[in-house]
C-alpha cells in the first residue's frame, strides 16, 4: 500500500491512507506495546503481587492514627537526622506501615533513601525475602527497565504511536457499528483475526483511548517542556505550583522537637471526612520542620496525583496551608491521570480495569498476528521461502507474545525458587524475566516451524507451575488459602492456573494447525474471550492479584492461512474463502 500516491478526493483515499498509517504505527512499536500493556495490566494489582511475592509477611492493618504514632516512634529512634520522612499508613491492599527516609549522609555507593516496612502491631521492621514485587511490572510498563530518562522516552514514544494507531484505526474502520457484534472465527485466516482485532479494539475503545492519552499526560512535564517554559523559568517552578503538597520546605537550622503527628492526623481525617494517604515530614527536629498530610488517593477519582492536603508547622502543630478544592483545569488533569492510575477503584472496578486492559493487550497481539495473516494470504503459492519480513515479524511475534508471558511466570518462579536469604535475589528475579523473554526470541528464530506451539506450551507450563512451586516452597498455597479465604494468595494462584489453561489451549491449537495443514476447520478465537472466561472463572472478590494472562491466540488459526513454511508439498496460502475484495474494510 502506498500512502504517497495521489489521493482521489473522497473517503476511499482517506481510509486507505489511515489503514496504512494504522498498520505501520501499530507494527513499529507493537512488541514494546504488548509488553507495556501486559505489565501495565499487572500493575493494577501491584500491591497484591508484592504480597504474594513476600509470603512470609502476614500482618493486619491498624487505623491510620495508631499507625502514624508507631511510625513516628520508629523514625525518631532510627532516623532522627534524616532530612525527610515519608509515612504511608496501612490500607486494605497494603496492610504494612511503609516508611521512607532520606539520610543526610549516605554511605558511599548507597542511595540516600532507605525504605522500611513495619508490622503495624509490633512496630518492628519486618524481614522478608528481598524482592521488587509488583513494582517491577509497574515500573517496567513506563520505564522498560532502561536507564533514566531513556526508558520513559521510549515508552512515551510508543504511547504516542499507540494514540495515532487508535485514531487512525477508528477512521479506517468504516463499518464500526455494522460490525460491532461481528466475530467470524470459522472463516479463518485474515478475516477471523481481523474480526477478533476489531472486536477487542472497539469494545475496549473508551479504555484504550483513555489509558493511552492519560499515559502521555502523566509524563507531560518531561515530554512537552515548551508549554512550561513559555511561562515559567524552569519546570520545577511549575511542578512546585501544581504539586504544592510535595514542595520541599527549607530548614531554619535551629533544633526544635517535632510535635506528635497522630493528633494532626485525627484533625485532618475529621476535616476531610476521609482517609489519610501519606505523611511527609520535612526536616524533623528542626524549627522549620513541616508536616504535610495528604488525603488517600482511594478517596476520589481525581486524587491520584492531586489529592487534598494540609500542611502543619512541625514545631507547633499549627496549620500553615491547606488545599481541598482544585481549579477546574487541575481537577480535569487530576481526573485524567487518576483514571490511568486507577487507584480509586474498589475490587470490582479493579477487576474490570484488569480485564479490559488484558483485552487491550490481546488487541495489540491480534494486530501483530493479523499483519502476518494478511500477508500470508496474499503470498503466491509455490514460493520456496517466505519473505524475510514475514519471517522476522512472525518470529518477533511468537518470541514476544509467548515470551513476555513466560517472562512474567519466570519472575514468580524465581521468587519462590531462589533462596530467601540470597543476596541480590531481586536482581535475579528481574533477570529471569529477560532471560525467559530473550530465550523465547532466540528459540523462535532457531525453530520457526515449531515456535508457536512450543513457546505457547512453555508459557502455559510455566504459569501452571507457579501455584505448584508455591505449594512446594511455602505454606500459603491453595490448599490453605482457599479455606482461609485469603483471596490475595488464592486469587493469584487461581489466575495463574486460569491463564495456564488459556495458553495451553492456544498451544494445542497451534499444534493442531501444524499437524493438519490442509484443514480449514480451525476456529481461531479472540484471545480476549478466553482470558475473560478464564479470569472470571478463576477468582473473584477482594484484593486479588493478577498473575499473567493476556496475549493472543497464537497462529493456531486456520492452517490454510498459516502454511507451514518450507513444505512445498502443502499448497501454500490456499484460503478456503475468497480473498477480501479490494476496498473492503481493512
Amino acid at each position, binding site marked *: 500500500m502506498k500512502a504517497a500516491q495521489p489521493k482521489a478526493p473522497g473517503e476511499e483515499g482517506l481510509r486507505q491512507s489511515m489503514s496504512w498509517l494504522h498498520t505501520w504505527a501499530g507494527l513499529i512499536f507493537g512488541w514494546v506495546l504488548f509488553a507495556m500493556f501486559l505489565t501495565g495490566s499487572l500493575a493494577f494489582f501491584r500491591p497484591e503481587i508484592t504480597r504474594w511475592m513476600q509470603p512470609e509477611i502476614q500482618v493486619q492493618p491498624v487505623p491510620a492514627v495508631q499507625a502514624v504514632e508507631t511510625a513516628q516512634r520508629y523514625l525518631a529512634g532510627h532516623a532522627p537526622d534524616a532530612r525527610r520522612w515519608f509515612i504511608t499508613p496501612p490500607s486494605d491492599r497494603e496492610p504494612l506501615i511503609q516508611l521512607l527516609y532520606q539520610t543526610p549522609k549516605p554511605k558511599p555507593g548507597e542511595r540516600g533513601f532507605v525504605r522500611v516496612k513495619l508490622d503495624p502491631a509490633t512496630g518492628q521492621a519486618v524481614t522478608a525475602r528481598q524482592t521488587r514485587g509488583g513494582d517491577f511490572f509497574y515500573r517496567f510498563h513506563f520505564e522498560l527497565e532502561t536507564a533514566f530518562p531513556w526508558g520513559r522516552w521510549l515508552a512515551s514514544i510508543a504511547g504516542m504511536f499507540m494514540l495515532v494507531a487508535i485514531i487512525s484505526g477508528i477512521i479506517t474502520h468504516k463499518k464500526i457499528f455494522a460490525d460491532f*457484534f461481528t466475530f467470524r472465527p470459522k472463516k479463518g485466516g485474515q478475516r477471523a483475526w481481523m474480526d477478533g482485532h476489531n472486536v477487542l479494539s472497539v469494545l*475496549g475503545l473508551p479504555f484504550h483511548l483513555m489509558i493511552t492519552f492519560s499515559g502521555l499526560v502523566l509524563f507531560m512535564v518531561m515530554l512537552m517542556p515548551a508549554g512550561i517554559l513559555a511561562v515559567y523559568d524552569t519546570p520545577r517552578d511549575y511542578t512546585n505550583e501544581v504539586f504544592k503538597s510535595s514542595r520541599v520546605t527549607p530548614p531554619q537550622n535551629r533544633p526544635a522537637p517535632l510535635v506528635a503527628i497522630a493528633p494532626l492526623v485525627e484533625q485532618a481525617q475529621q476535616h476531610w471526612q476521609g482517609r489519610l494517604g501519606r505523611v511527609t515530614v520535612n526536616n524533623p527536629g528542626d524549627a522549620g520542620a513541616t508536616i504535610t498530610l495528604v488525603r488517600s488517593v482511594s478517596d476520589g*477519582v481525581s486524587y491520584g496525583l492531586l489529592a487534598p492536603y494540609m500542611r502543619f508547622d512541625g514545631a507547633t502543630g499549627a496549620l500553615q496551608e491547606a488545599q481541598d478544592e482544585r481549579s477546574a483545569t487541575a481537577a480535569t488533569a487530576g481526573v485524567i491521570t487518576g483514571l490511568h492510575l486507577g487507584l*480509586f477503584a474498589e475490587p470490582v472496578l479493579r477487576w*474490570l480495569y484488569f*480485564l*479490559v486492559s488484558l483485552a487491550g493487550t490481546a488487541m495489540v497481539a491480534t494486530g501483530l498476528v493479523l499483519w502476518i495473516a494478511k500477508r500470508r494470504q496474499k503470498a503466491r503459492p509455490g514460493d520456496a521461502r517466505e519473505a524475510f519480513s514475514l519471517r522476522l515479524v512472525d518470529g518477533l511475534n511468537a518470541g514476544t507474545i509467548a515470551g513476555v508471558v513466560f517472562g512474567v511466570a519466570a519472575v514468580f518462579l524465581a521468587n519462590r525458587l531462589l533462596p530467601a536469604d540470597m543476596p541480590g535475589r531481586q536482581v535475579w528475579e528481574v533477570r529471569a524475566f529477560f532471560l525467559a523473554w530473550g530465550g523465547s526470541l532466540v528459540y523462535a528464530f532457531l525453530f520457526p516451524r515449531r515456535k508457536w506451539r512450543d513457546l505457547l506450551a512453555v508459557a502455559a507450563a510455566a504459569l501452571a507451575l507457579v501455584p505448584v512451586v508455591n505449594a512446594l516452597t511455602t505454606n500459603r498455597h491453595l490448599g490453605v488459602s482457599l479455606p482461609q479465604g485469603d483471596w490475595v494468595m488464592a486469587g493469584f494462584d487461581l489466575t495463574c492456573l486460569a491463564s495456564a489453561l488459556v495458553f495451553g489451549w492456544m498451544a494445542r491449537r497451534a499444534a493442531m494447525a501444524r499437524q493438519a495443514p490442509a484443514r480449514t476447520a480451525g476456529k481461531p478465537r*479472540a484471545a480476549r474471550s478466553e482470558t475473560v472466561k478464564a479470569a472470571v472463572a478463576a477468582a473473584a472478590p477482594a484484593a486479588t492479584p493478577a498473575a499473567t494472562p493476556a496475549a493472543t491466540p497464537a497462529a493456531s488459526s486456520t492452517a490454510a492461512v498459516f502454511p507451514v513454511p518450507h513444505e512445498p508439498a502443502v499448497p501454500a496460502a490456499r484460503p478456503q474463502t475468497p480473498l477480501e475484495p479490494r476496498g473492503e474494510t481493512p
Partner: protein
Amino acid sequence: MTLAAFCLAYAGFSALCLGMDRHYEDLFDRALPRRHRVPLRLFGWGALALSLWASAVVWGWSYGTVEWIGILSIAGLLLIWFLTFRPRAALTAGGLCALAAPVLAVW
C-alpha cells in the same frame, strides 16, 4: 446492584444485536421484521441507560460512570463470544438477564 447493572448491559447489547438485520437473520433464518426493529433498539438503548443509572445509584455519578464503561466492555465482549459459538444460548441469556436485573436490583 453491580450485578444488575451488568445484566442490564448484557440484555441491552443482546437487544441491540437482535435489532440488526445481520444477526437476526443468522439466528432466525428470516429477515428482521420492521415492526420488531424499533422496539428492540429502544429496549437495547434503554437497558444500557438503566445500567448506567444502576451503577450510579450505588457509586455516585463519577465512579459509577467509570464502572459502567467497564461493565459495557466486558458484557459486550462476553456476548460477542457467546454469540459466535452458541447464538441462541447467548441471546436467551440476554432475555434472562433482562428478567433477572430488577430482581437483583432490589435484592
